[in-house]
């Protein structure tokens, strides 16, 4: 059962980056065991830059090798590395000025101990065995710890890199969202009625956005789980990262009886598409209590209706006139 007081959601996507004619050669150089730089406005930059940062003019796409030695200009010690850091043991992030360059950059130094690194320390580039044309192909060590490496250059230039970027969001539900989620787990739909307009919205937002008044527990009511289709589409799921849906299905808005704004994004998979229509009357069939879950629900997203409602059944009642539903399409 979901702990409603402490929800954790991970948002994750494998973004790509086209490297372009400046960072591309630099990343290709890292894969091949070289630090490349370019000279812009009389100053040598490693990593190379695409334009003169002072004037915005194009920079030359001609590269020279700098390093492998570098000087520490300043540093900080990472005592407790996260899973995203380049080392799983303590290390330093340092401002490094590569030999031959005029502008420093930040990188990781595997110094062993914080006593082994400070401003003025000489360090040397070292390359990982598993290189993929990324900034993490290289790291630095104090000069005395450097070993000679024999690097086999790769074949193709690095044009695109991929980065699995994750954001872990941990948050308690707002009180009204928590009561709404508890309602779903108990097989009931909780709405809020504005004391100003008298309009009922499901789920409640905790405020009436038109009349700008807060809505509290005193404004809440359980509403019918029977209603009318007010708009729909047949959705062909786009096959993006993390998409679990593969086949087309109906997505609709349902104006629940006694409410003034439809529930949206409702999955329908058991009613033939040919017979589905605006104005059709439907009744929710809830999942068994032990099967209901609200994992996908947070303070912004409603989660999947399928997680709590097994299916929607036509009630057999006469349709509602679609014209009367035009203000309830979403």
């Amino acid at each position, binding site marked *: 059962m979901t702990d409603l007081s402490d929800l954790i959601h991970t948002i994750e996507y494998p*973004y790509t980056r086209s490297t372009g004619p400046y960072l591309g050669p630099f990343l290709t150089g890292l894969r091949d065991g070289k630090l490349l730089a370019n000279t812009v406005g009389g100053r040598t930059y490693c990593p190379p830059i695409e334009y003169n940062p002072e004037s915005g003019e194009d920079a030359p796409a001609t590269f020279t090798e700098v390093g492998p030695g570098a000087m520490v200009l300043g540093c900080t010690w990472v005592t407790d590395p996260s899973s995203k850091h380049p080392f799983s043991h303590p290390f330093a992030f340092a401002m490094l000025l590569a030999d031959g360059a005029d502008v420093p950059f930040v990188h990781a130094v595997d110094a062993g101990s914080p006593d082994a690194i400070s401003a003025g320390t000489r360090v040397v580039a070292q390359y990982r065995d598993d290189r993929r044309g990324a900034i993490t192909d290289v790291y630095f060590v104090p000069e005395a710890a450097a070993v000679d490496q024999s690097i086999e250059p790769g074949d193709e230039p690095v044009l695109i890199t991929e980065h699995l970027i994750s954001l872990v969001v941990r948050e308690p539900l707002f009180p009204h969202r928590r009561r709404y989620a508890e309602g779903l787990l108990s097989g009931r739909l909780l709405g809020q009625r504005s004391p100003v307009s008298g309009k009922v919205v499901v789920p409640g937002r905790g405020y009436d956005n038109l009349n700008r008044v807060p809505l509290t527990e005193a404004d809440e009511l359980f509403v019918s789980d029977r209603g009318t289709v007010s708009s729909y*589409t047949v*959705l*062909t799921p*786009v096959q*993006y990262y993390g998409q679990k849906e593969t086949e087309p299905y109906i997505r609709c808005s349902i104006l629940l009886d006694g409410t003034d*704004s439809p529930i949206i994004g409702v999955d329908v998979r058991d009613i033939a598409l040919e017979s589905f229509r605006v104005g059709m009357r439907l009744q929710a069939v809830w999942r068994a209590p032990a099967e209901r879950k609200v994992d996908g629900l947070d303070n912004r997203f409603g989660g999947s209706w399928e997680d709590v409602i097994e299916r929607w059944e036509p009630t057999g009642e006469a349709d509602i006139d679609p014209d009367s539903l035009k203000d*309830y399409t979403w």
Partner: protein
Amino acid sequence: MAKPCAVIGIGQTKYKSKRIDVSLEGLVREAALRALADCELTFADIDAIVVGKAPDALEGVMMPELSLADALGAVGKPIHRVHTAGSVGASTAISGANLIESGRYERVLVVCYEKQSEGNATWALSGGRSGGQGAGGSFAPWIRTYITRSGAPEHIGWKVATKDRLNALKNPYAHLHLKDISIEKVRESPMLWDPLHYLESCPSSDGAAAIVLGSEAAAKKSPNKPAWVIAHAKRTEFGQFPGRDTVYVQAGVDCATELYKKAGITNPRRQIDCAEIYVPFSWYEPMWLEGHLIAPFNEGWKMTDSGATELGGDFPVNMSGGVLSSNPIGASGLIRCLEAANQVRGTAGEYQVDGAKVALGHAYGGAAQYFAMWIVSSELNPTFN
């Protein structure tokens, strides 16, 4: 009283599904440098920069207006970013115009972009969750509502999709160049979000667009003809509230009303020569013709059906091929605004509307809830009768 503002330079990249030959910085610089070249200026001549793009989750680059600042020559100059979802391109153009109209700046660079190939828009619009509806799945039910309400025949959507792709064949920057496009091809293409077919939907594009806006003095010094920004308006409403009409959107009606009033336009169909309207899904052409008071209620589809919105019709729409042919989302609204400017400058090449003097640029965004529109003219003080 607002000071005059003109579009004095225009720059676009070629729109493509993947621009793997450039970095993000390289992409935006391509458009910016072309806009500067069009008015024979350099970054040094620019007083302020405005950047627009769709939500950060599209490329996974947080606050790109900071990392792009020096790529856009903004060192030591004010730069800000505008954020109004799909309408952002037009909102950004308007923000730039406000900077000139305030009298504070002489020349402002406006740059918008999207590099859709680096992420996935439907994933981003779904908050990274499975089962997302995306833009097409969200708009499709409202399009169905429009069709039911207006009694429009189903071929209207196919007709718009075909017309805009035929127009795109005349635009070298357009992403889609579908030489064999036809109503039959649109009708036979897969149904993606009923009632929308695959070919009734916009592509995913990489690309950037830029304009240089100038004061009256800057425009008079500029080597090429200016497009005067004679009016602009923005309106927003909540995405969901009891009684919201998602088809004939009140904020869209209000936005158009204010725009025409500011411009002195009393009959938009007759007094505006052509329009670049944000139409990412075919049916939004008739829907916005009505929703922005160009066609009578429930009769926008008749205007489309009559051929009035074709290049050569009496109210051409999306002469450049529109969003249906190129969709770098964050830039798409600015492209509408700059293509309107191209028309009144007489620089629209093969898709030029003969004698265009007054043109509309438009974008909408979110759950059809954000609107940004401008009117540009070949004349600083056009008169309408």
